[in-house]
């Protein structure tokens, strides 16, 4: 979104114009409770997803496999959720099948009545094929399932084998897995690495690490009975873990995706990263010289999940049953394995992990088979309830942690500021 500047009328209109996104949309939907009953025409099956959300060969194959009604696929760029919400409010051209991103699903669960409960069209028969915790993300508290998982984002420790070896740390994946089992052991290794190689900081960014530790737990900021629990021990533990990396001075302060991160990965000053399976693509594109020297090990203290998306059927679908047949076909273990080969879309069906496409060794990781690390991780991710307001409430914790990182505040002062800000946001959203 870009704002026009320095023209009197333009400036005036911009204030209003920025709101047009919300406001225009708002009024057209009127004041009704939001269940649109107008069905789409049965002559076409419309499907929306974002670029790279589905494997190309799987998509082509699915379109060929279902000639009647013909699938009309649209790739929607930009802010996907915003465009979907706008379309819902507009009331026309709502797709029959739509992708939903993992980070948006929690905030869409209260809108479950806009989607078909997949259990009413026979999802019970296939839900067992998918990772249980992932299905749970798309399940409402009263048991409706609004989306079938496309993919997941299990985390692992990516590291430079040669940098580890030079510092006297274990370098073989099995030995790394054995020694760096916990955050404490990981930090110890970081201190040792820094002593031998002052430029190589094991923790790329301590504030990123915080999210990893939160994701390893079974509780987040708001409990299932809608109470604020962000001030409790499980969050404080994640906070302290992150702060410990800062006080040990093994925090590289290079957020993933930043220019420093990209350059550091290539030059060995960012010798490790903990990230989801899809981060492999980012690392591969950043690294020019160190290909073949990277390895994968399990995340210290257990895996977490980042990203991963769903396919859902809207209430506007003329033939929900047919739409479900389509997504069931697209997201079968065979097709998920194909999508992984196409575009590194990590399968949400454990059965796919044994397919040849996933069993392939990866030269970038020195011939290691990535699924040997990511597969067990995906199965072991803890189930945590995520409230629709989780992201809003989490924001102050990130903001305040950064002030600790910059040295502007002590950990305790920042913590109490984060808790009080988060509480105010939670209260406004109706959380107790």
């Amino acid at each position, binding site marked *: 979104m870009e704002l026009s500047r*320095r023209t009197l009328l333009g400036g005036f209109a911009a204030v209003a114009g920025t*709101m047009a996104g919300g406001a225009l949309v708002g009024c057209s939907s009127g004041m009704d409770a939001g269940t649109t009953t107008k069905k789409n025409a049965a002559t076409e099956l419309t499907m929306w997803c974002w670029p790279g959300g589905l494997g190309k060969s799987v998509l082509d194959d699915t379109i060929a496999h279902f000639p009647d009604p013909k699938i009309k696929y649209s790739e929607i760029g930009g802010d996907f959720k915003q465009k979907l919400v706008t379309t819902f409010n507009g009331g026309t051209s709502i797709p029959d099948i739509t992708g939903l991103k993992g980070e948006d699903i929690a905030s869409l669960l209260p809108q479950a009545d806009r989607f078909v409960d997949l259990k009413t069209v026979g999802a019970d028969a296939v839900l067992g094929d998918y990772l249980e915790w992932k299905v749970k993300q798309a399940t409402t508290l009263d048991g409706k399932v609004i989306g079938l998982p496309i993919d997941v984002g299990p985390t692992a420790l990516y590291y430079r084998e040669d940098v580890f070896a030079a510092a006297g740390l274990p370098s073989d994946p099995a030995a790394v897995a054995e020694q760096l089992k916990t955050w404490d052991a990981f930090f110890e290794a970081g201190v040792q690495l820094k002593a031998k190689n002052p430029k190589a900081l094991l923790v790329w960014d301590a504030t990123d690490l915080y999210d990893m530790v939160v994701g390893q737990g079974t509780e987040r900021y708001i409990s299932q009975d809608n109470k604020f629990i962000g001030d409790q021990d499980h969050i404080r533990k994640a906070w302290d873990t992150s702060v410990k990396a800062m006080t040990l001075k093994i925090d590289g302060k290079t957020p993933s995706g930043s*220019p420093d991160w990209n350059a550091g990965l290539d030059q060995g000053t960012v010798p490790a990263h903990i990230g989801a399976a899809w981060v492999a693509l980012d690392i591969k594109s950043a690294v020019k010289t160190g290909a073949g020297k990277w390895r994968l090990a399990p995340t210290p203290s257990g895996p977490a999940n980042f990203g991963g998306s769903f396919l859902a059927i809207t209430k506007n679908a003329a033939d929900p049953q047919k739409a479900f047949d389509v997504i069931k076909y697209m997201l079968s273990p065979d097709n998920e394995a194909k999508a992984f080969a196409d575009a590194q879309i990590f399968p949400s069906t454990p059965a796919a992990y044994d397919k040849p496409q996933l069993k392939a060794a990866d030269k970038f990781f020195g011939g290691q088979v990535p699924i040997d690390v990511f597969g067990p991780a995906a199965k072991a991710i803890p189930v945590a309830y995520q409230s629709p307001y989780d992201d809003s409430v989490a924001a102050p914790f990130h903001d305040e942690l950064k002030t600790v990182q910059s040295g*502007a505040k002590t950990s305790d002062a920042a913590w109490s500021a984060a808790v009080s800000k988060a509480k105010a946001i939670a209260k406004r959203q109706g959380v107790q």
Partner: protein
Amino acid sequence: MTATAGRKRIWSYWRFYLALSPFYVLFAVFGLYPMLSTIVLAFQRWDGLSARRFTGLDNFAFLIKDPTFWQALENTVVLFLMSTVPTLVLALVLAVMLQSAVRFTNVYRIAYFIPNVTSLVAMAIFFSSIFSTNFGLVNAALRSLGIPQQDWLGQPWGIKIAISTMIVWQWVGYNTLIYLAGLQAIPKEQYEAAKVDGAGAVRTFFSITLPQLRPVVLFTVVMSTIGGLQTFTEPQVMVGNSGGTGQSGMTVVLFFYRAAFLDNDYGYAAAIALSIFALVLLFTAINWRIFRERGENR
């Protein structure tokens, strides 16, 4: 004149009204309607999908108590001052230099204007590379001078410097061209008279150039105020939706964006938007007063 004659006269201009209507129709649809519905929305709770709920002044009550809003307001004003003052001073200096340059004037004009038409997002990415800690150009320069490198985008003041540098870079050329146009409207005789009277370059600048430019300066100050108080893209791309360390890059428009499109709190976002509107009005009025009064007192 009778009433019917008056009406007749109005209707006889229908062709002119028709010719003017596209602007008014577009303005009503894309300007007036969103504006009015924003005002309505500011008194409601709405998450973007469910039914809207009228909540009276709740959004404003929360806004006044929200520390992030005050932080954003402070950041916005600080960033505005840090970027507008250098921009206008630099632009004026450049304009005077361009005015007296003999060769390649057009080349310079184009060169100065190019930043203004470059994609803002692309430039923000470029600037965040320049200011990056380990491999950035700014730190490379500092290191070569023996000054320790700084964590520009990780420190509250560093973020503000990086953002305002980018705004200055982008808007200097635009304002230079406006000043240049203003300079060319000043009668040559005045300068000749000054020369005859033996005034130096500095004296000429303060006694002739600056007073004559006053209306143009007012224009650029008002435009910079409106633009500066709506800074959004630069911090969003450089330090993200959270506004970076200590939220020091969180401007009011970024705060508005976060409330609407990340927190799905549209009613609250509308209240923030109205506060931006009030802020712009206030600052414009202040500028207007300062510059006009000085002009009259002269």
